[in-house]
């Protein structure tokens, strides 16, 4: 198993290194003539107004929250899916109960309107 992870590790390093090397090469090859106008932020053709790191609506957070809960749920369904062929009907029903408890929560959140984008 470790060999498989070793390959993954090597691949991660390679896939980070390839674009990094390409960008570095291009950085060396390309001309560097910065000036003040060129380096200004590209917004509406005007000076950037106020703080850039503006605040955001709560909706993004709500989606991320629901996503987090369902992500965790799905991750722990994967081992059960692997064990599915050896499971009895009772175990399958347990898995269904596990999903439907969260599905109930999902329906509540839906009814409450937290999933709608106003």
């Amino acid at each position, binding site marked *: *198993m*470790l060999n498989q*992870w070793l390959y*993954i*590790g090597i691949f991660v390093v390679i896939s980070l290194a390839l674009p990094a090397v390409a960008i570095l090469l291009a950085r060396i090859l390309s001309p560097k003539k910065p000036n003040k106008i060129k380096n200004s932020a590209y917004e509406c053709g005007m000076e950037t107004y106020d*703080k850039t*790191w503006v*605040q*955001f609506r*709560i909706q*993004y*957070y*709500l989606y*991320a*929250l*629901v*996503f*987090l*809960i369902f*992500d*965790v*749920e799905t*991750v*722990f369904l*994967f*081992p*059960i*899916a*692997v*064990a*599915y062929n*050896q*499971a009895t009907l*009772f*175990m*399958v029903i*347990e*898995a269904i*109960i*596990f999903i439907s*408890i*969260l599905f*109930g*929560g*999902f329906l*509540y*959140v839906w009814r*409450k*309107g*937290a999933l709608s984008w*106003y």
Partner: protein
Amino acid sequence: MSVQQLFFVVFALITIFSALMVVSLRNLLHSALWLIMALLGVASIFAILEASFFAAVQILVYIGAIAILIIFAVMLTHNIMSVAETQTNRSWGIALVMVVIIFFIIITQISTWPGFNTRLQALNIPGQDAVLAFGTGLVDPQGFALPFETASVLLLAALLGGVFIAFDQRREKKS
């Protein structure tokens, strides 16, 4: 030092350094990015431990979901604490001393345990065996069926509580 030990040391150093940056940087978003790095380091430690499933879960849940949630929260609440302001409270010196003392207490205590220096051999778990055993254990009525269902209730409570707290209907209606 064998190759495996070398890998372990490298990843452990990455993890510890990133954790240090997480607790010491002033810019919160940089802290969050270093947190991602620390979590990746922990994931590779899990891979060395042959807990493949948890290495993948670490990346998926912690980096893909929790870290993203933290970044979202940082951006939702930004512009409050300026970077120039100090980010630690006055008692950081006491905390540091306490942490160092606790570290030595822990190490001296657990090093008395005879299994402390056991060398972990490769388990050589073939294919899906570990995941299969885990999956069966989770839904097995003799195993961990009840904790598993309870975990689902915990997640449900977190979902409802989180949405209920964060979702302000009055304000949403007004806008």
